[in-house]
């Protein structure tokens, strides 16, 4: 089974100097936090905010590549979680055939938003990643932790 997820936002994680893409299901019962690098976060953020950069960025280029031959992104699935690393598949339709291509979740999400394709997560991934972990992490954050960034 898979559950459709929405990108709820991007957060900065000062401990790991990385960003967290927060995916939630429609009922907001489940949450998947996915850690990504700065440039990946920027690629997702530009798409979320519908910013059209003056030049095609890498994922715009990726979409142009697919558009050139009418390959359509049908959906993106966060397919596995193994030792804190998420794996994703991009499902595409090209000339009446369906393809599943392995991808990092960050590329998959950046491409899904640009293609207006739905994002899903395997239920096994959601089970593995109980949202407790993130909540615990958030609870442990103190205002001081954010202040450290400026010092």
């Amino acid at each position, binding site marked *: 089974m898979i559950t459709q997820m929405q990108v709820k936002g991007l957060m900065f994680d000062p401990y790991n100097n990385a960003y967290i893409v927060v995916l939630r299901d429609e009922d907001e019962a489940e949450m998947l936090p996915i850690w990504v690098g700065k*440039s990946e976060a920027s690629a997702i953020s530009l798409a979320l905010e519908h910013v059209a950069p003056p030049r095609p960025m*890498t994922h715009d280029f*990726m979409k142009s*590549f697919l558009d*050139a031959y009418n390959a359509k992104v049908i959906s993106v699935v966060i397919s596995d979680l193994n030792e804190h690393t998420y794996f994703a598949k991009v499902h595409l339709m090209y000339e009446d055939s369906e*393809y599943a*291509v392995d*991808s*990092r979740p960050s590329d998959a999400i950046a491409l899904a938003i640009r293609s207006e394709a739905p994002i899903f997560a395997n239920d096994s991934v959601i089970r593995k990643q109980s949202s407790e972990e993130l909540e615990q992490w958030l609870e442990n954050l103190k205002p001081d932790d954010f202040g450290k960034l400026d010092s």
Partner: protein
Amino acid sequence: MTNTAQSNVQDLIPLSVSRVVEDTNTDTRIIVLTRTDDSDTFTIWVGAPEGDSIRRALDSATPPRPMSHDLVKSFGEHFGITTKRVVLTDVKSSTYYATVFLENKGVERSIDARPSDAIALALRTHAPIYATQDVWKRRSGQHLDAWLAKLDTKDIDTQEV
């Protein structure tokens, strides 16, 4: 560089990527391109993630997970889309523009790209890289050799695989 690619694009300047130099002051990367029929070079500044992607391709490094340009390559392999060539087509206010020429079952398409994405894909797909005569004439970096040499000994030699 294949003969077929050359014959279609006789007026273009064939280029190869010599190296990627780290500019730590600005967190950018400098791509040094060399004429394959000459030894003249020119340089393009690109962002750190794109520059690092080009460096990985130069080193033939296989990352444990597909990075963004590996994913584009993978799409091409799945659909039978080949990258025929990459051409640096224009330069305005020191900003370079590129076009990627693709082919599938005899149908050629071209897409606009930043040179960094175009070169990152070209290296992964073994596609030739060219500049137009106009871009070549207006290129920057003809007098940067000494400066690059200084950077090289410090930053690059240690990163050779």
